Each structure stands twice: as structure tokens, then as C-alpha cells.
């Protein structure tokens, strides 16, 4: 097993090298105010049997779990995704991957509607002809926490006596995201966990121990430096490899990066629904000031890269919620909502299907947003700058299966916390069901000079859903979301449902109404026929006489 533990300090001026103490087989860190990334690489032989049996059925597997609390991006750790569990998967050319779904459910929670890749996963399109590093199948579930994973690790993976293993597993409860990557070529599983700060709000004080000689542990205590090139990032600080180094070695290195924070910009966005949501919720993305394309990092005065940048939102839509691609095809409609185009839509897009006939988890959409830069009203731009800027995405709800909602005790759920408290039963007293909606990440996608260089980045993060929809030569500038709803990056939609308490009444009532109507019409017809016959007979009698 190889481990790489990176601390990225928030404030380097508070740092003193004595906070790192390297011993022969261990390293001690004290009071580091930093973000932390822990990356572990396992060989096949080091994995439990059920895990590698499932992995052997995959060509590629990328699991991304993201916390509901927005990540505070630092240094190279600025890429964003919707909160929840994302699985990107490419099957082997032959054979079925029947072990994948059972494993995902076992590890991340039983409540998932994962049956098999064929039935539950969607196929994102391949938009860029020149390249696709993206996986062929995609799955998503609104998994609010990693507690099932932690329980699985504690019970199934950690040896009973290994307290450090149990403690490490428990620390995942505070992680902001967790990545797992496997591909059939390298035959190894990489697990990366990220914390944007030590939790609860105390600095990191930790000891890392090398317990076997086969184990490699590399530790870095770094801080972001000013990069000399655009599209690059620089890190400085100290590195140490356990067992090799006696003391931390100073370092300074630069690398090209795929993901960046929006340079020198305080702009944030807020995602919210217009209320009431009804059956056609509108998702608003409100920017604190009109979004402007990023300027190159080195020279903020340079021309904004508007010619090669476009603003996007990537939506992960659970099956209850869907987009109408035809509605998003009219230029007038789009521009009236500050949208430019629906770049990609895949998954469950049937406009007529109710939720209970939809087998896959939902759909994923990439939408290009309009920004003031492409509106021709340039003269008003200064006025724009002080105002908020809102892009509105029209969504629609599927009908949910009727259920017994009267029995649910609690009222409508206003906050995500309340939703979490009762999310298993999901029903409210006012005949609605509360469904979580992961807010979308919003970013500028800009053309880069060359794409292959990004793989050099030791912190490169790919397979995030949206990156596969762009060419390899794309740089992403992420806009930071405003924390909402008690610090959660998840919205809630109340979906009206039919109460089955009424089922008997509806059945009886409808049948009686139809029967009554039919009988009455038949009676009227009968009367008419009878009268006509009488009249005719009378006429006939007259004639006979």
C-alpha cells in the first residue's frame, strides 16, 4: 500500500517547521491549520475478496462522493461536483458486471435503487470526437453521508484490534469528498479523501506510522505560491518519505492544472427555487455580480478570455425531476432566462413517464449559461456590475406513486436538516413528498493551449461528469457557491402525491358514477325508443283505419 498525505496550509505565515517532526518510521504533525488530502493506492492483492471480484468486472470505475456542505476550495483542490454519490463506470468488453450494484449498496447504503449497470445507469454522450476519457455509464444517488461506508470499513475491513484503522475510518465522516479510482490497466485501486480543514475546528495534530516495510508513506506540508504561468499552479513547502528522509525536505514546484478557482474574483452564486415550486420548479442561479470570463492569472489587466470561455452549469437530476429538451431549444426562451443552450442531456428524459416506470436513477444535463459579456447591451455593463445576475432553468416533476401520506406525522420539511432527520420515510402531512435536489456546480470552461500536460499534475482530478463532455484541452474555472440552508448545498422540492387513504373511495365512487351515468343515459334512450315506437304505431293504426 502506498499513501500520500498532503496538507495544504491555509495561512503559511503561522507556520513553523518545528511543527513537523520526522522520526525513523513515523512523522508527527502538530497544530497544522490546513486542508488535507489522503490518497491511498492498493494493489489487487491487498484488497478484500468481494472488492476485487467486483473490480475485476470493470474496465474503469470511478466513484465520487461529495459532501452536502460546500467545499472551501484551496490550491489544486478547487474542482466541484453536486453533492451525493456519483459512480462512473465502463464495463469490460465481455461479461456482465453483476457484482457492482450489490457492492455499491453494501458499501454506501442499502437504500439505493441500483439493480444493475444495464438497468440503473445512464449513458452520457460523447461530445468531443477527438477524445473521451469519460466512462461510458453513470450512476447517482443522493447519499447524504458516508456513515454506511464507515460502518462497512469498521466491521468488514479493519482488523478488530486495529484502533488506528477504526479511527481513520471514522475520520471519513468529516471528509468533504471521497474519490475511488480503478482501471483494468493499472490494476490498482486509488482512494482519495479530502478535508478542507481539520474538524471540529481545531488544527491537525497527527502521527503517521509506517507499520510494514512494504508500506510507502509520503507526507507533504505545502502552501500555494503564486504561479508564473496561466493555467499553472505552484506549491511550496516540505516533503518527507517515511523511512527514507530524516527531516522534511523543502520543495517548490509548478504544474499545469485543469481546475482553477476564479482568479481574483469575489463572485459567488446562489442556487434556489422560486416558490411555490408546483409541478414545474424553476431553478435560479443567482450570481452576486454579473459573471465575467476569467482573465489570465498572471496579468489581471489583460483582456478577458471571453472568446474561448463559456459559463456552464452541470445538473444532476434525480428521476423525479426532469428537463424538457424541446423547451430549451427556442433561442428567445433561452435568452429570456439568461441561458444559451442545452449542451448535453442524457438519461431519463421521457416527458410523459411517471416516476414509477422510470428504472434508471435520473438524468444529467450540461447547460451553457448566458453572461453579460455576450449580451449586446455593452453600454449597460457598468450598471450590470452592481446588480445580481440570474439564470433560470425550467424543470418539471414526474408524478410519484400514490402513497399513504396521512400517516406521516411531521409537516412539510423546510430545511435539509429536517429532511435528513426523516429522509427514510420521506412523506409529509400535507400530501407531499420531499425530494432532495443537489445544486449544480457552475464554472467557466475555457479552451487551453494543450491538453495532454494536465496529466502531469499530481493532484489532477478527472471523471467528474462534466469534464468528459468537453475536449481534453479544457480548463475549468470554478465559481464558489454561497452556503445555503444551514451550510448545505442541497435543495428540497416538495412533490404533491395522491393519498392512498382515498383509494377505496376513488374506486367505489368512480365505478358508481360511471354506472349511474350509463344507466341514466340508457334509460333516456329507452324512453325515446319506446315513445317513437308508440308514435309510429299510432300513425300506423291511423293509416290502417
Amino acid at each position, binding site marked *: 500500500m502506498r499513501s500520500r498525505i498532503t496538507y495544504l496550509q491555509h495561512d503559511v505565515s503561522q507556520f513553523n517547521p518545528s511543527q513537523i517532526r520526522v522520526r525513523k518510521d513515523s512523522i508527527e504533525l502538530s497544530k497544522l491549520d490546513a486542508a488535507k488530502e489522503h490518497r491511498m493506492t492498493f494493489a489487487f492483492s491487498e484488497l478484500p475478496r468481494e472488492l476485487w471480484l467486483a473490480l475485476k468486472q470493470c474496465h474503469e470505475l470511478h466513484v465520487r462522493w461529495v459532501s452536502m456542505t460546500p467545499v472551501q476550495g484551496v490550491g489544486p483542490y478547487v474542482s466541484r461536483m453536486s453533492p451525493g454519490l456519483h459512480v462512473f463506470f465502463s464495463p469490460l468488453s465481455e461479461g456482465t458486471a453483476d457484482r457492482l450494484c450489490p457492492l455499491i449498496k453494501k458499501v454506501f447504503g442499502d437504500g439505493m435503487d441500483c439493480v444493475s449497470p444495464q438497468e440503473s445507469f445512464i449513458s452520457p454522450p460523447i461530445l468531443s470526437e477527438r477524445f473521451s476519457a469519460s466512462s461510458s455509464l453513470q450512476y447517482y444517488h443522493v447519499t447524504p453521508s458516508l456513515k454506511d461506508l464507515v460502518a462497512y470499513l469498521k466491521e468488514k475491513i479493519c482488523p478488530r484490534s486495529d484502533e488506528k484503522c477504526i479511527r481513520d475510518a471514522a475520520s471519513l465522516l468529516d471528509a468533504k469528498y471521497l474519490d475511488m479510482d480503478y482501471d483494468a490497466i493499472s490494476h490498482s485501486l486509488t482512494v482519495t479523501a479530502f478535508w478542507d480543514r481539520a474538524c471540529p475546528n481545531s488544527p491537525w495534530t497527527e502521527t503517521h506510522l509506517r507499520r510494514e516495510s512494504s508500506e510507502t508513506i509520503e507526507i507533504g506540508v505545502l502552501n500555494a505560491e503564486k504561479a508564473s504561468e496561466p493555467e499553472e499552479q505552484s506549491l511550496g513547502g516540505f516533503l518527507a518519505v517515511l523511512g527514507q528522509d530524516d527531516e522534511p525536505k523543502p520543495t517548490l514546484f509548478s504544474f499545469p492544472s485543469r481546475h482553477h478557482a476564479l482568479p481574483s474574483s469575489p463572485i459567488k452564486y446562489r442556487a434556489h427555487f422560486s416558490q411555490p415550486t408546483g409541478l414545474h420548479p424553476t431553478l435560479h442561479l443567482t450570481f452576486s455580480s454579473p459573471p465575467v470570463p476569467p482573465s489570465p492569472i498572471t496579468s489581471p489587466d489583460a483582456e478577458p478570455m471571453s472568446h474561448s470561455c463559456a459559463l456552464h452549469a452541470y445538473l444532476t437530476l434525480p428521476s423525479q425531476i426532469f428537463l424538457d429538451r424541446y423547451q430549451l431549444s*427556442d433561442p428567445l426562451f433561452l435568452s429570456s432566462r439568461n441561458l444559451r443552450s442545452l449542451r448535453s442531456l442524457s438519461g431519463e428524459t421521457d416527458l410523459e413517464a411517471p416516476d414509477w416506470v422510470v428504472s434508471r436513477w435520473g438524468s444529467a444535463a450540461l447547460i451553457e449559461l448566458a453572461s453579460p459579456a455576450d449580451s449586446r447591451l455593452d453600454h449597460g455593463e457598468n450598471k450590470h456590475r452592481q446588480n445580481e445576475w440570474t439564470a433560470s432553468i425550467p424543470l418539471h416533476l414526474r408524478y410519484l406513486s*400514490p402513497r399513504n401520506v396521512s400517516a406521516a406525522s411531521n409537516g412539510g420539511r423546510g430545511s435539509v436538516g429536517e429532511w435528513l432527520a426523516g429522509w427514510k420515510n420521506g412523506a409529509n402531512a400535507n400530501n407531499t413528498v420531499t425530494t432532495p435536489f443537489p445544486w449544480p456546480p457552475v464554472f467557466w470552461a475555457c479552451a487551453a493551449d494543450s491538453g495532454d500536460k494536465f496529466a502531469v499534475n499530481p493532484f489532477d482530478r478527472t471523471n467528474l461528469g462534466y469534464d468528459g463532455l468537453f475536449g481534453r484541452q479544457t480548463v475549468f474555472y470554478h465559481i464558489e457557491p454561497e452556503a445555503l440552508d444551514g451550510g448545505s448545498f442541497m435543495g428540497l422540492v416538495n*412533490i404533491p402525491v395522491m393519498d392512498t387513504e382515498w383509494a377505496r373511495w*376513488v374506486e367505489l365512487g368512480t365505478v358508481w358514477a360511471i354506472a349511474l351515468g350509463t344507466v341514466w*343515459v340508457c334509460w333516456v334512450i329507452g324512453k325515446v325508443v319506446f315513445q317513437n315506437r308508440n308514435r309510429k304505431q299510432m300513425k300506423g293504426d291511423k293509416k290502417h283505419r
Partner: protein
Amino acid sequence: MSFTTIIDAIFASPKAVFGSAIALRAVLLVYGLLQDAYSPVKYTDIDYFVFTDAARFVYQGRSPYLRDTYRYTPLLAWILIPTAWDGWFSFGKVLFALADLLAGYLMVVILSTTYRMPQARALKFASIWLLNPMVATISTRGSSEGLLGVVVTALLYAILQRNVVLAGLLLGFGVHFKIYPFIYTLPFLLWLRSPDGTRRKAKGGSKASLKDQLLRFLNRDCTTLAIFSFVSFMSCNVLMFYIYGFPFLKHSFLHHLTRIDHRHNFSPYNTLLHLNASPAKSTSFHLESLAFVPQILLSAVAIPFALTANDLASTMLAQTFAFVTFNKVCTSQYFLWYINFLPFYLPSSSLLKQTRLGVVAGILWILGQAIWLQQGFQLEFMGQSTFVPGLWMATLVFFFINIWILGIMIRDIGTQSNAQSSPDKKER
């Protein structure tokens, strides 16, 4: 000149009526173009985008079923191929509007020939269709129901003219296009039983053998109608199936057997369907699968047998009204199916003769929809769960209002003597 004389003057002149009908549609077409060009809220019906997308696929030599939710015969997409040409997008709307006008013209012809109405009176009643803003709006928004209106009115015209070949061809095409016109088969056969379209004076008819009766029933005209409608229906089907294969069958016909129709609509069955189509259904027995029994019994069998001898066009109105009332799905577009028969029924109806009854019926019919719409709005836009009891009750109330109106129609038609053979009774 008083207001009524102006009105009378307009209805005295076909030019004025058709001129207004054309102007009404032209204004709506132009208004629609403007609204579409300058407002994100479109005047054009969503279905029109479905048709034109499908027509574009056909134009490219591909299948119209590549367009989601295209559930019509490919012939519709064929007819609309010009909409795929540059600058011809509105061709279909113009065509639908022209179809409207042609249907209105046929109504005038039928009213003045078969019903022997004076021209002004015929124009007045045809204006129920020609100058109806609902009809003009629906066709200029690009709904294909207007096309069906002309097919069905032409069908009525052909049969009244005893042009049995044309009637057969139109009937077959109508059923291919929208299925429901099959309910007109029985009244046509009944009507064709005697040379002048009236029931033969059955002298000793009750004593005639079954064989004689059957032979009389299957006279030459009936056979012609059966053969030509079958040929036209099947040749459309075979041709479409030959070209587009299974997707044609699936979307044009099988879809109507398997569709769930859970989304709220005016049908009294809607709530039951929503419940029983879902995993929440409590019984394994599907009551709604018997829904066609009262619907077909009344609309295709009982009403034609009881009323055809009295008045064919009004019988078709009652049939269509019953069909829509008892249908498993019902949206406001379905109301257009029977509006084109109103000009033949209303002149002798108690709804016009007893003004108060007519007004009450009209108000109740609109009120029934208003209650439903209010509940629907609460659901769609306010997110209130009004499925039960609100929407369910609203559909039942609307159902009973329709049943009551259907009863009035049947009584009216049943008590009026044969329009075609003795028109002088109706015209004073």
C-alpha cells in the same frame, strides 16, 4: 342601422361571413407570428413543434417517430413536409385554418341542401364553427384537430349525398388518422339501409325472416361503404407499416392501448387510472380495463340504433359527445371533436328553444371545467396535492354535467322527426 340589422346583414351575405372567418384566422396567424417572434411564451401549440420536427425528419428521409411524443400517422408529417422548407414554418397552420374554412363551407352546404335552410340561417349556424374563436385559435395555434374536423364534416356530406365510395374512403382514412371515427360506422350502415336514407316503412317487417332482414341490412350501399372504408383504412396502414415498420403500429395504435394517462385531465377515470397504474394499487383487478364497455355500448351501438332514423348529423353529435364524456382521457382539444356537429343539432334543440335551459347548460359546462381548472392550477403551480378529493370530485361533477347535457341531446334528437325526409317541419 341598429345592431341587430347589422348582424342580420352580415349573415345574409356568404362573403361577409367567410370574409370574417378568413380575417379572424389571418389576424390570429399574424398575431401568433408576432408573439412567437417577440415573446418567450409561444402562441404556437407544443404539438405543432412535434409535427414540424417530425415533418423535418420525413423531409430528410427519416422516420417521424424519431421525434419523442409523435403519436400520429406519418401521413400527417407527410402533409406538413413543406414546413421543413425555409420560411414555410407556418404552412401547417395555414393548412389547418383552410381546413377549418372548408369544413365551415361544407356545413353551409349541408344545412342548405339536406336541411333546406335559408342561406342566412345556414350561415348563422355554420358560424358556430366558422366564427368560433376557440376553433380558430386551436387551428391557428397548429393543432391538427382542425384537419380532423374537415374530414369528419366531409364524411357527413358524402354520406348525405349518398356518395358512398367517397364516404368509405374518408371513413377509413378518419379511423386511420384518429381511431374514434369508427363509431360512425353503425349509423352510416343504418342510414344507408333504405334508398332515400330513411328507414323503410316496415310493412310486415317484424314477420320477415332473419335472412331477409340481414340481406336488407347488407344492401349494395352498405357493402360498398364497408369495402371502401376497409380498403382505405388498410391501405393506409399497410403502406405506413411497410415504410415505417413497427414504430408506426406502436405509436399510432398500440400506444393507445398501453398508455397510462396518469397526468390529470377531465376524464372521470383519471384518478382511478393514476391510482391503478401505479405500484400503489390495492387490487389486482383492473376495473378501468372495462371502461370501454359503457363507452362503446353507448356511443357506437345504443345511440345510433335509437337515433339514426331521426337525424344522422345530430346522432353523430350525441355519439361523439358520449364517446368523449366516457373516454379514459379527455383534454379540451377533445371538445373540438363534437363542436362541428353543433350547427346541425342546435337549430331544433331545446337548448335554443328554451333559452333558460340553454344558458344553464352552457354555464354548467363551463363551470365544470372552471372548478377542475382551479384545482389543476393549485396542483400544477401551487404544488398543493389536490388529486383527492379535489380533482377527482371535479372530474365527476364535470362528468355528471356532461351526462345531463347528453340526456337533453338524446331526448331532443329522439323526439324530432326525420330531418332529411321532412325538413319543412323544422323550417317555419
